[in-house]
């Protein structure tokens, strides 16, 4: 059938009804401090990788918690695991453990 070059656009919108939150639930078990984040951005401000790449650990964390897993492995590979983010977090989130475990869960 000729579609005259038209196709159906996919929405950018997050749909929490259909999102797969299973990995996010699993991460909560592995790193309980995962859910304490208040989105202040101290982690992404101090991030060594962020000064050289477009890596944003705060956004990756939120995308993961909303079940938006596409492209996150490539993002997480930009992290050098220096751990500065753990030092600055006002809520005591173990961000380094978060990154390692997010990577593991995404590769499963």
């Amino acid at each position: 059938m000729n579609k005259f070059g038209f196709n159906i656009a996919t929405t950018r919108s997050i749909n929490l009804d259909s999102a797969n939150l299973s990995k996010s639930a699993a991460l909560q078990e592995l790193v309980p401090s995962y859910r304490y984040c208040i989105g202040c951005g101290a982690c992404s401000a101090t991030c060594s990788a962020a000064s050289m790449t477009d890596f944003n650990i705060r956004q990756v964390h939120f995308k993961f918690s909303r079940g938006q897993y596409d492209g996150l492995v490539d993002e997480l590979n930009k992290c050098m695991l220096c751990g500065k983010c753990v030092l600055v977090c006002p809520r005591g989130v173990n961000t380094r453990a978060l990154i390692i475990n997010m990577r593991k869960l995404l590769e499963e």
Partner: protein
Amino acid sequence: MGAGPAGIEAAAALAASGCGVVVFEKNERPLSNITDKACLFPNFESADTVAAQLLAKLSHPNISLQCGHDVSCITSAGTDPAAGWRVDDESFDAVLLATGYTTFNAKRKEELGYGIYPGVHTSLELEQMIRNKEIRNSISNLPKRIVFLQCVGSRDEKTGNHYCSKLCCVTAVKQAIEVKKLLPSVEAYVFYMDLRMWGQHYEELYRTAQQEYGVKFVRGRISEAGGTFDGRVQIKAEDTLLGLPLRMTSDLLVLMVGMESSDGTRRLSTLCDICGDYGFAQSLDPHLRDNLTPRQGLFVAGACKRPMTLTDSVVDGRSAAFAILSAADNK
């Protein structure tokens, strides 16, 4: 005027100092803004217990409580400012306005669907459900998801209320915890613009909600709500920390309605010429003379001035009693 926390506390302090006090209350019973609550933040003390303790203060022999009396007339007793006041047919040396607040009428935010879709409720209605320990969705089933929306009728140019109602943030956190206590499997989301946890132990309560109850917080204001065919509510917002639009359905949408000046506050403060911004009563200055007004013998206390918590109102009532006694000494 008004048998709320500020009025009662002021009356009790004045009575203890030997003054004769008449408390006018327009409702049939005092403390209607406390007795409709289940528990109080931040320590989950029963609202009924606190109300009973406040009510006991009214039993002082120097206090006469007149319920069901909606004051219609307040005037100076004479041309001399020191002549005192007349309230309806009685004369007094001093008048204390403690006429309190009311909550924002959520129907004014039509896009949020209150009064249109059965799954949309105000925070007061949810409080009633928590009080009755019976939280149900619009088709009488146990809800699986509940969404709270902050700043309904506060910080909003469109409703004309630019101010922050200041206690809705912690109220939503408190209610989310209470819901999770009653129904542990419920998913609870709070949509906020800023979370203003300004009081002692409020920030800790927010943390407890995240840590122990798994309440989820999303930074973004819900722009609109619609009904689904099965009586639930579909909402649209932006997850502003991700910069992505977000939608979801929920059994219940709870609108955290802000505080507005009550009808009595508007009417009586206008009558006394002390009506300020948004219909709240205006004190002489907010720092050192916050219970005084430009008119001699007329005092103000509590949430008739601005949004206030129970604790603030009680302290302000006591402070007003002190201001009244000082004014009497200087007379």
